[in-house]
């Protein structure tokens, strides 16, 4: 596969690993946050921790749009489907995310709610066209990568005046999450540099990060998704940390430009406006951190069409997702990890999302958990 396979070459990985080892100073640690959940998965799926020197540590960030949604979002979606007998269309990632009281979209579906998995917002619009007598709600989630497609489909629904289609908008904004990470309540920021998200940056460009890098004096390297991209970005960050510079560098130059995709940005601005505040799992209420549908498209806003009252979210007590999202704790430091919280029975979103740190650790990396005390790789 062109432009994929070339970024997974072993000899280059070994060369980059060697360069990284040569570049790190032995007298300090390098704590690097990979903001995006997709990067967390790439790191563990390819075993990058094994290629790093001991003083490079990965801190996992909040860039998992499923992980940062509070369970009240799912509660509301379930209430709408049941209360209004609507068809709910959702991306697969949301199906098993735990809602209040141990519920989930998947369980609601098993109990008879009409919940359907879609690959694209277009699929949801099509379902509404194929089922004119039913209300169809599209549960829209995601950072700026996924937002422009939703905008396009809302516009299309408006253009054809599709009466039974609406969108439950939960799109969230990367700069707000980044700001929250950079300004922790206790003032303790133990991160030396950031691996910036790939495809969010394709849309928003590299410019928005300049403010953060300058103001908080942390270097940022926007990285592609492939493992060699991540490794090259790590090398670039280590160089900056050693030089004590704090620039925004663009490793993913084949897909990211300073200004980003202006057409996509214009479409987003046309359909959405920023919410005053939005509740994030783990980060609390953040101002101007999410999007809502503009008034002129309000006919397609599921929040307005189907108001629901839900009790405030009740997350599982010992679930450490909030700290894991902020990079303060690692998955194996959560009491529930691997005991009562597993992918089969997830108690927190981080374990069930395809981009959640707990899921990545569990599926790819749990053999590294110090509690297992194994080092079987070189045995036999």
């Amino acid at each position, binding site marked *: 596969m062109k432009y994929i396979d070339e970024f997974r070459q072993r*000899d280059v990985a070994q*060369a980059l690993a060697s360069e990284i080892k040569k570049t790190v100073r032995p007298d300090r640690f390098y704590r690097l946050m990979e903001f995006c959940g997709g990067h967390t998965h790439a790191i563990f799926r390819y075993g990058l921790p094994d290629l790093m020197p001991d003083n490079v540590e990965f801190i996992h960030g909040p860039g998992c749009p499923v992980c940062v949604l509070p369970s009240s979002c799912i509660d509301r979606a379930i209430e709408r489907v049941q209360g209004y007998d609507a068809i709910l269309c959702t991306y697969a990632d949301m199906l098993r995310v735990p809602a209040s009281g141990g519920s989930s979209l998947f369980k609601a579906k098993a109990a008879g709610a009409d919940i359907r998995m879609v690959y694209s917002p277009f699929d949801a619009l099509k379902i509404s066209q194929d089922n004119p007598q039913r209300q169809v709600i599209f549960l829209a989630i995601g950072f700026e990568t996924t937002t422009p497609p939703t905008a396009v489909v809302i516009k299309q629904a408006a253009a054809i005046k599709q009466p039974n289609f609406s969108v439950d908008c939960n799109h969230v904004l990367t700069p707000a999450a980044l700001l929250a990470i950079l300004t922790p309540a206790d003032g303790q920021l133990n991160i030396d540099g950031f691996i910036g998200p790939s*495809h969010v940056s394709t849309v928003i460009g590299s410019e928005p990060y300049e403010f953060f890098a300058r103001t908080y004096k942390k270097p940022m390297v926007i990285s592609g998704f492939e493992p060699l991209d991540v490794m090259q970005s790590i090398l670039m960050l280590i160089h900056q940390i050693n030089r004590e510079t704090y620039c925004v560098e663009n490793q993913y130059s084949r897909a990211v430009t300073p200004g980003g995709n202006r057409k996509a940005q214009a479409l987003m601005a046309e359909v959405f406006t920023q919410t005053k505040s939005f509740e994030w799992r783990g980060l609390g209420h953040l101002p101007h951190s999410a999007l809502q549908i503009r008034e002129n498209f309000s006919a397609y806003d599921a929040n307005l069409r189907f108001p629901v009252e839900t009790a405030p979210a009740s997350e599982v007590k010992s679930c450490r997702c909030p700290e894991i999202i902020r990079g303060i704790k690692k998955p194996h430091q959560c009491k529930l990890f691997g005991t009562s919280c597993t992918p089969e029975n997830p108690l927190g979103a981080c374990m069930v999302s395809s981009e959640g740190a707990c899921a990545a650790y569990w599926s790819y990396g749990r053999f590294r958990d110090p509690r297992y005390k194994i080092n079987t790789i070189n045995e036999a």
Partner: protein
Amino acid sequence: MCLAMPVQVISVDVSADTAKVSLGGILKEVSLALVDDVSVGDYLLIHVGFALNKLDEDEATKTLETFAELARLHAME
């Protein structure tokens, strides 16, 4: 969720604003609503049924050349 992948444009349907693309021989149809000036042979990044951006092949080549150089030097050590 934020996974996007590079695919090559096989054909463009201007009126529908869609393109037929190929990833390693698998063909898919995607919307071009978010990109302009797409031609056959271009590489696009696609996500949830949409093209997000065109891939800059010159930049890709530059990155790969840096990798090749690193690997070459490393092999000599």
